[in-house]
């Protein structure tokens, strides 16, 4: 049975080539992020004043920047920053949002009202403006940008989790568990949480690329990663000053963000189809 189920999973996957391509590209970026020290050909922070703003060559396939640093190596190391910011901020959002949503959905009453009114208000701040406001309070750095993006993404998870809990609670198997005497916490952890996990996972594939773009924007504005640490956002901010003399500086970091977010979206779409039981 297990083997045939796995076979079915593969068949369903192969019917969605864009999703497979997306997943492969995301994996490729994970490899870049983890293997940055071995893949990068130069020290991303070392300046070579003999090679300032040189067009792509065999030694520097993506060219060099305004301080003579190798753009390829900086893009590779930038992957690590982007992945870190994207994944950790959403993990933070899940760590706060899911318990809060579980609480709101299962307790109802005053706690529910309190959590949901806070969530409504929090959601009224445009995502980016909230993140900018938080960075203003905490100070500009990669860690603070990650925390700010995570906090800005939290209400989405509170709302989603609460909604899922409310609909799952009506299911027969949850009612049965209750009737058999399972306590509130046990019902939530053993019966509700495993059943809403896939929806949360799908949401994460949407939020992570959004968080990656948000980090790039904050760094682009100077509110995230500080130089000389390589990040795609700061690289683009510098590149904008040299569009006439060194256009290649602006191609690669942007192309990296674009392909990573596009792949996440493709893989996420595929995952949603795959996990959607209606499709059976």
């Amino acid at each position: 049975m297990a083997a045939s189920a796995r076979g079915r999973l593969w068949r369903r996957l192969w019917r969605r080539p864009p999703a497979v391509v997306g997943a492969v590209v995301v994996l490729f970026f994970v490899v870049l992020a983890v293997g940055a020290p071995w893949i990068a050909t130069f020290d991303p922070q070392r300046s070579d004043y003999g090679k300032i703003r040189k067009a792509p060559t065999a030694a520097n396939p993506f060219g060099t920047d305004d301080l003579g640093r190798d753009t390829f190596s900086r893009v590779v190391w930038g992957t690590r920053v982007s992945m870190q910011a994207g994944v950790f901020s959403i993990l933070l959002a899940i760590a706060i949002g899911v318990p809060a949503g579980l609480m709101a959905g299962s307790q109802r009453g005053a706690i529910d009202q309190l959590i949901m009114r806070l969530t409504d208000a929090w959601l009224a701040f445009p995502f980016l403006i909230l993140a900018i406001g938080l960075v203003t309070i905490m100070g500009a750095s990669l860690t603070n940008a990650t925390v700010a993006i995570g906090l800005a993404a939290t209400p989405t998870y509170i709302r989603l989790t609460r909604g899922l809990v409310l609909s799952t609670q009506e299911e027969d198997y949850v009612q049965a568990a209750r009737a058999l005497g399972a306590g509130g916490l046990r019902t939530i952890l053993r019966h509700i949480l495993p059943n809403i996990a896939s929806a949360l996972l799908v949401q994460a594939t949407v939020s992570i690329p959004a968080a990656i773009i948000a980090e790039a924007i904050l760094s682009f504005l100077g509110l995230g990663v500080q130089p000389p640490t390589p990040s795609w956002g700061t690289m683009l901010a510098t590149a904008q000053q040299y569009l006439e003399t060194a256009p290649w500086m602006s191609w690669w970091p942007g192309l990296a963000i674009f392909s990573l977010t596009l792949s996440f979206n493709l893989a996420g779409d595929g995952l949603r189809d795959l996990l959607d039981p209606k499709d059976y």
Partner: protein
Amino acid sequence: MAEFLVRRVAISIVTLFVISLIVFTGVRMIPGDPARVMGGTDADAAGLAEIRQKYGLDDPIPLQYLRWISLALRGDLGESIRTRESVVWTVARKLPITIELAGLSLLIALAIAIPAGVFSAARRNTVWDLLANAVSLCGLSVPSFWLGIMLILFLSVRLHWLPASGFVPLWESPLANLQRMIMPAFVLGAGLAAVLMRQTRNSMIEILSADYIRTAWSKGLAGRAVIFRHAFRNGLIPVVTILGLQTGALMGGAVVTEQIFVVPGFGRLIVEAVFTRDYPLVQGVVLITASAYVFINLLVDLSYSLLNPRIRIGGAAGGG
């Protein structure tokens, strides 16, 4: 109906109250003497004493909040540390520029998304549908600031078609204004167009399979009449809702777009305020943006329920 309206307005008021609490608390969390935070590092003793007295900074926190919110409700959000101008006045001067930018980008987004969405729903599962979906997915994934930089690179630096940056007020020269606003408006509208196109396509597909549409087809009405007279109007309702929810993204997007194209609007104002540690200005801008968002969505919800109280899309599609 009346009950819905009252409830919706009440929730908005509670939301606005919580927003004001969050903003008030946020500023108090900035390390250091609150009077210094509000007055800036170069404020003298008299200036600090004035701020302390105005906001009652020696009073208990709840009283401080009441003082602050009653000033805010009367339109006094303090003054900018850098320019010593009132925050409300500073914002009011910058806002028309951003509203023009947002309005233009909305027009561009609608002009792309609605025809593409309707077309792609009507020609579902054809090459055109696939193509429209691929373009919309790219629009969703492309970082707007990179799109902006690439447009500058090709249209301004390479082809010299459009000026790369700068701003000319609309009343000075509408043409020069449009030349400089068209690229930022396109960049800001691209993401929105992608979201709207998906939504238009989905709701059109849902509507086109509804019973009353099938009736229209079977009456022998021409394809175009069915799509535009019957399906289109109802298909647009969820699109309007999404539009309201997307105003937040539009305001956030304006920050980056104005930065890239050096448009002296609201978005550039907030970035400058953050860099110069102009806390009263940041506070004012954040408070105004969030309140505007709540207000716009209240209007969207109200207009939506007023315009079409009866047709429920889910019910229609479900055949009920």
